[in-house]
């Protein structure tokens, strides 16, 4: 029962090396769906790509936050992402009240809300020892109430320059995507090159051993949960600016989405191992598969089934068995 993982990284062909990357499957899947949709779209392929970049950004931003949380190990997941998005967007847009001068303070409000949500989430996990899944879920109900209470679902327009930034782009790349890519690069640096990244991964593999190796486990977990909420808040802020206002239900689909992009992207769900490029591949894929099925005129039922089958398929293909002796 040998396997390729136990062999040292000897010189393999570039293709082989590429195929061994867990994130490649997400990009392959995205490329295939893009190709299939382009068959219909024809010359519209360019604008399809542009749209894909735009909408994938939101998934990618929340996905990055979620990925770090999931990397912390089994049972760690942030289910408060949709509520944090909504709360941050609602409060920030209400605060800015369409005034251009308030853009920066508004952004700070959104980020502040994110930090607040993260602190509460982790507080519940640490102080009350509630399993993260349930802690973040329960907290999200509170955030939802807060969002409802704060302005009762009224949609306030974002300031004009902010809306222009959110919907605009340069050189064929949407501004939003630039933000998303920069964040991904930052996350990659933190995970692969910084001490913090090592710590996160160590905690994900064995919390107790990490603690005994001198890793400041609570500080790291605190940072990761706050980061996830801040990413969600930022995504909410951008999404509201992009779509012309905050809705009470705007974050709903990002609950499953944030988990889906993490796992399709090739991060090991068991924790300890994360994968930044895959997030983008998966985010593009999740947008493109819906577009493809819509373009082929398939009904909602079939669309859902195919989405599910493809998710399972990608994961089954990308999987490699671990040590099994």
């Amino acid at each position, binding site marked *: 029962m040998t396997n390729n993982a136990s062999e040292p990284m000897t010189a393999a062909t570039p293709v082989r090396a590429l195929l061994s990357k867990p994130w490649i499957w997400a990009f392959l899947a995205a490329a295939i769906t893009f190709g299939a949709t382009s068959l219909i779209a024809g010359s519209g392929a360019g604008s399809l790509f542009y749209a894909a970049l735009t909408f994938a950004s939101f998934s990618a931003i929340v996905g990055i936050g979620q990925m770090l949380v999931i990397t912390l190990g089994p049972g760690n997941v942030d289910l408060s992402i949709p509520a944090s998005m909504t709360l941050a967007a609602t409060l920030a847009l209400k605060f800015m009240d369409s005034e251009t001068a308030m853009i920066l303070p508004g952004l700070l409000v959104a980020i502040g809300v994110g930090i607040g949500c993260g602190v509460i989430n982790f507080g519940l996990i640490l102080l009350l020892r509630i399993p993260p899944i349930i802690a973040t879920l329960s907290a999200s109900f509170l955030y939802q109430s807060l969002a409802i209470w704060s302005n009762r679902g009224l949609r306030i327009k974002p300031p004009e320059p902010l809306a222009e930034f959110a919907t605009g782009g340069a050189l064929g790349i949407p501004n939003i995507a630039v933000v998303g890519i920069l964040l991904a690069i930052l996350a990659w640096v933190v995970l692969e090159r910084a001490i913090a990244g090592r710590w996160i991964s160590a905690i994900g593999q064995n919390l107790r051993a990490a603690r*005994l190796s001198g890793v*400041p486990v609570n500080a790291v977990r605190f940072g990761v949960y706050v980061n996830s909420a801040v990413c969600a808040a930022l995504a909410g802020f951008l999404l509201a600016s992009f779509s012309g206002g905050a809705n009470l239900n705007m974050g709903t689909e990002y609950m499953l989405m944030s988990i889906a992009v993490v796992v399709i992207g090739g991060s090991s769900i068991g924790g300890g191992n994360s994968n930044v490029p895959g997030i983008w591949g998966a985010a593009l894929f999740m947008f493109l598969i819906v577009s493809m099925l819509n373009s082929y005129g398939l009904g909602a039922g079939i669309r859902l089934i195919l989405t599910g089958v493809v998710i399972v398929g990608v994961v089954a293909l990308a999987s490699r068995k671990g040590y099994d002796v």
Partner: protein
Amino acid sequence: MQTISGAPDAPVVALDAAHMSFGPVQALRAASIEIKAGECVGLVGHNGAGKSTLANVINGRLTPTEGAVQYRVSDPAHKNSENAQASGVRSVFQELSLCPNLTVLENLRIPYRNMPRKGWRKIASQKMSDALDLVFPGHGIRPRATVGDLSIAERQMVEIAIAFADRDSEPSLVILDEPTSSLDAAIAQQLLDHIKRYCSEGGAVLFISHMMGEIFDVSTRIVIMKDGQIVDDNPAQAFTRQSIVDAMGHVAPDDDAQGSARSERELGPVLVSSAIGLNARRGEIVGLAGLAGHGQAEALAQIFFDHSSVWKSGKRPEVVFVAGDRARDGVMPLWSILRNLSLTTLPEFSKRWMVDRPAESGLVQKWKDRIGIRTNNLLNPILSLSGGNQQKVLFARALASSAPLVVMDDPMRGVDIGTKKEVYQMIQNEAAKGRSFLWYSTETDEILECDRVFVFRAGEIAAELVGDEISEENILHASFEMQEAVK
């Protein structure tokens, strides 16, 4: 109950020139060995010599890449593991094979494939009690206790008892891979006595240990492995301690050095002390002794947690930890050797937030050479190392730090003699430079290395022994009888 069929005097198992390679690693080379009924074979070798691999080939978990394995009951249509099972080959692996969420008796049900279905709990309970009473009289383990609530020593006892238990068939060969590593001396002796009794009644045992005393105590035959090969296989009488150590290929360290270092060193002021009275001075090696599971590990953990933070980590940590229970407390299973080794020292050698990668590989390379980790590539996964070599990585992880206090929780489990001696020397040297050690050990040899020893009993310090008071008798005495501490 059914007895094992086949010719009674045929060997239980016979290996003929078995090869086992894992990719480029040749873990086993042309190994030939026969084990007959009534034999107790002691298997020794340095870390990574291939002992566990040999054991796994014998019990059928690994199928040799070349060569043949012949069991007493060998049906070519079946897999090796099935033949092994049918022939009554049973194993106790070093890392525990119990389900902690189940009770002791339920754990017996797992390997007992053909247990009667009606009233199985009663049967299992009875058989479990019988087996425990047989091997460890006076054990005090209830069959209905949940395994997770037992101490690590008790778990080890349960696992050994299950291997010897009367199940669907009688055991004909029991493989014990370092079974005594978490047992204290008294319980270990019960096991050794049982092994001798069992072999004299016609059973066979393959006993892997790094402890010479045990090997000589039980073995009728001793097999020595070195670099994947069986280099010696003779009746036990043919060996001496020295000849074994020589055959294993390690430089024999001179035993006289022991203790002399102790008196020469000058001790500084008290560095740490805990609520229950445990303390250590600068440059001192403090031992924690007593029967296994009497609060030593908890006391150590307490000191570690008191002097390290879950909220920050700095360039100058106060304390570092060497784990004994690798899987639970030490190893990061997804990582390479390199990353595992550098984990504790990351903030120390890096400049700011970023990992200084050249410094990292320099440091790891240095420790690989210094502590002798057997690998050809530090980027290999840590799990590709043998148990003892994984342990060395954990040692290096802690010693590479500049922390003035090193806390060690029975850290020499599964480390071979040669390496042990080197590590003892290294500890003495570090102590001389002013580092303090708190060292919990189940092995008397190691306790004798210490400057001062606290003997634990029922979670409290039963005695404090200094200098020449540190002896096996005194420790045993304090472990068993509550005495006024020598203060």
